[in-house]
């Protein structure tokens, strides 16, 4: 009986047959991803890091701001301080958990903002071409004249420190590369037959952009954006390291690294911990974006 059904489907494909038998695009992506153990492990790691940052108030064994002159710079595993204490006697583990909140926020929010803004500019430039393209892409070229770290330091250094300025800076720095990727993808899609067909049937520009172009531009842009998360985290921690991030009592991995730098002669291992957190997070995001690129079969 099952054979009969299968045969009938094979012989006379009905309307519902393709959806029943052919894997969808995302189904295919998942099929490839589920055997990629490195990527799966990194996704799990990222979820763990995010959860520990979100639930920091419940997980942290101590108040991350409570300093103690008696317990300054204790080694790893000293009494109840699992990861030791920092230069003001604050518990490292608690500060690390709280610090993850700022650092992850800085990795993710600017990338989302830049993907929306840069993607929009890129799609518009790629779709309309000519003068619009010239105007947008030549402006972006000027930003490409600055290495990303330099641009970040320039804007952040002029605006001054603080969490809002840092977020603003990172967003501005990340917009041009996303815009360029979106523009390239859009101008490739724009000339494809199905877009012409849609135009010939009288579809409006907005509907072509949203139903045909955007869907096809989405995967290269998202894969590219995922590579930017780790860049954003590193840039943000670099800015904090230079004193251009959150202001001191707040915990942030880059800032912790910067203040503990004075203590490397006393507690080298404890001083290195915030950097390990940055490194592990950034490696995890990098490997996940590699895996996504392969699973989604995007060349970029």
């Amino acid at each position, binding site marked *: 009986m099952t054979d009969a059904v299968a045969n009938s489907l094979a012989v006379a494909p009905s309307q519902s047959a393709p959806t029943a038998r052919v894997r969808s695009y995302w189904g295919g992506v998942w099929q490839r991803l589920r055997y990629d153990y490195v990527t799966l492990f990194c996704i799990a790691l990222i979820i763990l890091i995010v959860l520990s940052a979100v639930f920091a108030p419940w997980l942290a064994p101590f108040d991350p701001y409570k300093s103690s002159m008696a317990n300054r710079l204790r080694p790893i595993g000293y009494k109840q301080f699992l990861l030791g204490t920092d230069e003001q006697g604050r518990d490292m583990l608690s500060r690390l958990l709280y610090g993850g909140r700022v650092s992850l926020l800085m990795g993710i929010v600017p990338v989302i903002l830049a993907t929306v803004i840069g993607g929009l500019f890129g799609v518009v430039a790629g779709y309309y071409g000519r003068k619009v393209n010239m105007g947008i892409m030549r402006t972006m070229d000027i930003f490409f004249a600055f290495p*990303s770290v330099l641009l970040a330091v*320039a804007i952040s250094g*002029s605006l001054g420190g603080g969490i809002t300025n840092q977020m603003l800076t990172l967003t501005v720095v990340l917009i041009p590369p996303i815009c360029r990727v979106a523009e390239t993808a859009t101008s490739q899609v724009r000339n494809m037959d199905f877009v012409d067909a849609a135009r010939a049937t009288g579809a409006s520009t907005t509907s072509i952009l949203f139903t045909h172009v955007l869907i096809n531009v989405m995967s290269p842009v998202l894969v590219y954006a995922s590579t930017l998360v780790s860049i954003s985290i*590193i840039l943000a921690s670099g800015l904090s*390291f230079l004193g251009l991030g959150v202001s001191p009592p707040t915990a942030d991995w880059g800032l912790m*690294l910067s203040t503990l730098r004075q203590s*490397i002669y006393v507690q*080298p291992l404890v001083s*290195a911990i915030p950097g390990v957190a940055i490194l592990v997070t950034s490696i995890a995001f990098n490997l996940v974006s590699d895996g996504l690129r392969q699973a989604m079969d995007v060349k970029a």
Partner: protein
Amino acid sequence: MWLYALRRIILTIPILFGVTVICFALVQIAPGDPIQNLLSPTASQADAERLRAAYGLDKPLPVQYVIWLGKVLVGDMGMSIANNTPVTGEVLRAFMNTIVIAMIAVVIAFVLSTIFGVAAAYRSGGLVDKAITAVAVFGISVPTFWLGVILVIIFAVNLSWLPATGMGAGGSKGFDYLSWSDFRFAVMPIIALALPPLGIMTRTTRSSLSEILNQDFVQTLRAKGLTETEVMIHAVRNIMPAAVAMLGLQLGYLIGGSVLVETVFTWPGTGYLLNKAILTRDIPLLQGTILVLATAFVLINLVVDLAQSLIDPRIKRS
């Protein structure tokens, strides 16, 4: 060829123009009124207006920009607020310190990445490939300033092999890169600078090499009876133009991105200057340093493109 070069050079002009606009804008987005900082608290409104006029800050922005640009073109980038010395001299002196270690770092990264890339692509999927890929991922993901701190902990604190910071007693004057007693100050900054480009270039070399090795002409070479080494040489020659372009781009990134590494090692280059400018909120110094670095980046890219078109005749046709 000459037409391509000319076109490429002309295209650089609007970019440089844009760079000056952004650098000018940096002062405008900086919070606070520069005049208020110069005035004594008891100064009247009229005093403020007089001073504003004296500095030309009462004019409309485009006029201010043209005046500023005119000065920059003759090498006058204003005075550093903290030291009250001309910005131009200070930046150029620091720039020399930065570009030397950046160049050494990028050449080391280039040589190693070519070797690593070849080794990884030759047995792609094997143990060597996996190990090299791991090194590359580490290089891309590591925050350079943390790497710097780790290097200091290992080589300066634990082993006492290398000095932790600075350029030695003599400072940058008379610093001799060829003598070990001076050069050892540069070793750790160079390693910290070299690792990220090493990671990026290894990945690129590996992926473009394995793409080449899958092409038909490689089969033909093997069928012709060439040894594996000879086949590899053919393949490597194919990726060289792209690799050279990458080298230039990375050099540019290092010059601009060395601010963190130089801060860790208090290496007196442009990056250290930027850090100083940020700490003291010395906006003219910040602006001047950024302008010089971005201009250098644009010019390096220009030279790289021209060099690439010399190596690879396919480029000028497109």
